[in-house]
């Protein structure tokens, strides 16, 4: 209990300093540096009026669809590359070439290819999620204890059965940590994609708030984003731990 109180002290001190300094300089800064109480009030107001929920759900759906499709492809390709030497030899150079390109770097190209619409942020998230998941899955499969595979083969397991019963379960910690890393990141890239002319979503709300010079709404959106990114990572961390603790 005491440790928890101590841990929350810096957070409390941060918000207190912010509140006091914002109130103190209110006349000089106007609405450009709102205190956390105002941001909290604005978050609640936007929530009750349904504005935040409307924008949030659109972003949430984009994140879910983009993340799941990118992660699914990443896992598939990662397994193929980790399990089959031929797939690794043919695909690895290409993946290595594309991996360093930041997901946001694809936006201009995607704007031309798919236009500015729902598909744009989904694809950006999918690209962002794909590479880390693919790499961690491939690493996981390759790092499976060779003796386990030998035992499975000795017991007469087919290649497919060995993969599904031995290799994939053994590489799950790697896959999950890849998913955890990219899940939080999905929230970070979706905003940038939504800021480009997309009419709905948290990124669009951020842009709207910026054009109306509503710093309180900008901070409210950032708070929601930070919370969602944190929650997504926590969910995968929880799954990872649950998996590690399972017999």
């Amino acid at each position, binding site marked *: 209990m005491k440790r928890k109180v101590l841990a929350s002290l810096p957070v409390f001190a941060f918000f207190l300093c912010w509140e006091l300094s914002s109130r103190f300089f209110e006349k000089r800064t*106007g*609405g*450009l540096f709102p205190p956390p109480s105002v941001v909290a009030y604005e978050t609640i107001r936007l929530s009750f009026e349904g504005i935040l929920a409307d924008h949030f759900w659109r972003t949430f759906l984009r994140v879910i669809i983009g993340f799941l499709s990118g992660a699914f492809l990443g896992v598939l390709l990662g397994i193929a590359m980790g399990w089959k030497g031929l797939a690794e030899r043919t695909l690895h150079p290409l993946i290595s070439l594309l991996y360093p390109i930041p997901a946001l770097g694809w936006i201009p190209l995607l704007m031309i290819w798919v*236009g*500015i619409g729902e598909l744009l942020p989904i694809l950006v998230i999918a690209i962002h999620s794909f590479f880390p998941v693919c790499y961690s899955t491939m690493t996981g499969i390759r790092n499976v204890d060779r003796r386990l595979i030998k035992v499975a083969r000795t017991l007469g397991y087919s290649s497919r059965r060995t993969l599904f019963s031995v290799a994939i379960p053994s590489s799950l910690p790697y896959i999950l940590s890849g998913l955890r890393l990219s899940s939080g990141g999905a929230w970070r890239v979706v905003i940038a994609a939504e800021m480009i*002319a997309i*009419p*709905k979503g948290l990124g*669009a709300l951020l*842009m*709207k708030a*910026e*054009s*109306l*010079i*509503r*710093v309180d709404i900008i901070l409210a959106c950032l708070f929601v984003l930070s919370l969602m990114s944190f929650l997504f990572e926590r969910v995968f961390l929880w799954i990872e731990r649950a998996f590690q603790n399972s017999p």
Partner: protein
Amino acid sequence: MWKLLLAILFLLAAFSPVSAQELKMAVEFNTHAACAYVALDKGFYEKEGLKIKGYEAYMTGVALAAALTKGDIDAAYMCFVPALNAFANASCPIKAILGTHFYGYGLVVDPKKVRELRDLERRDVKIACLREGTAADAFMLRTLEKTKIDERSILPKVLRVNPVAAIGAIRTKRVDTAFLPEHWASLVEDYGMKMLLESKDVWDYRIGSVLVVKEELLRKDPGVVRRLALATKKATIWMNAHPSEASRIVAKYLSIEAERASLAERIDGTDSLDIPPETVGRSMSRLEYRNDLEERQVQDLIDFVYKKGYLKRPVRASEFVDFGLLR
């Protein structure tokens, strides 16, 4: 002898022209700021003893409003709505002291795809508009309200872009219609678009842009503000008396600004962005350059913007506009 010299110096000091007051000014990069360009070109500021230390041209009122909040601009010619946003939402200490024009926004359409306003509701019609909080956005909302087109069927598909991006999208056929401020609306007519609607069609009176000054300047040096207002009024009168010469001056400044901001490079398929005086003249003819601001009309516009949820708090017209100076 020295008494005589002193007397001469005293007389010289007393009757010498007013020392030039330095001002940092900002304008919107369009024909809305015509009176500022004309005042600069014809020396109306100098004649009033004002020295413009520097002027910045901003692509949209929103960008200018953001710059205003930083506080290093003394005076700005900008659209009423973003100026009001800066005042009400960011507590930016500014006051509007003069109007500069009425109207100045248009709905341009691809005539092959859009023939009437109802066509905007069609799913295949792509719409572009400037961002929320701009005067062009207020014009769009007013159009939808006035023509009873359901906002919910239109707003979710509106691409929010700046004027240059809108022109790029129009040229590459990524959008079929756009709500734009002048001179951009008239400029895209040169690219085969048609003006379907103007702001005067949906608004009997529509305050376009205003001259805003820092409250501090108004408080500490009202004489300078009065001289600035006077120079603006003289420029407006001159423009209305010499429309073709005014359009040449404005075209010259807009072309310089377009070159300075490398706008042509930012519009797909365009090598240069010369803004011909004819286009500027056509654009300017769609605006009503005038300096009066009527309290009831100002309040109506403020109430409309507030009703649309763009203002943090209700604002009284007299809070934002200094009607005293106008009188």
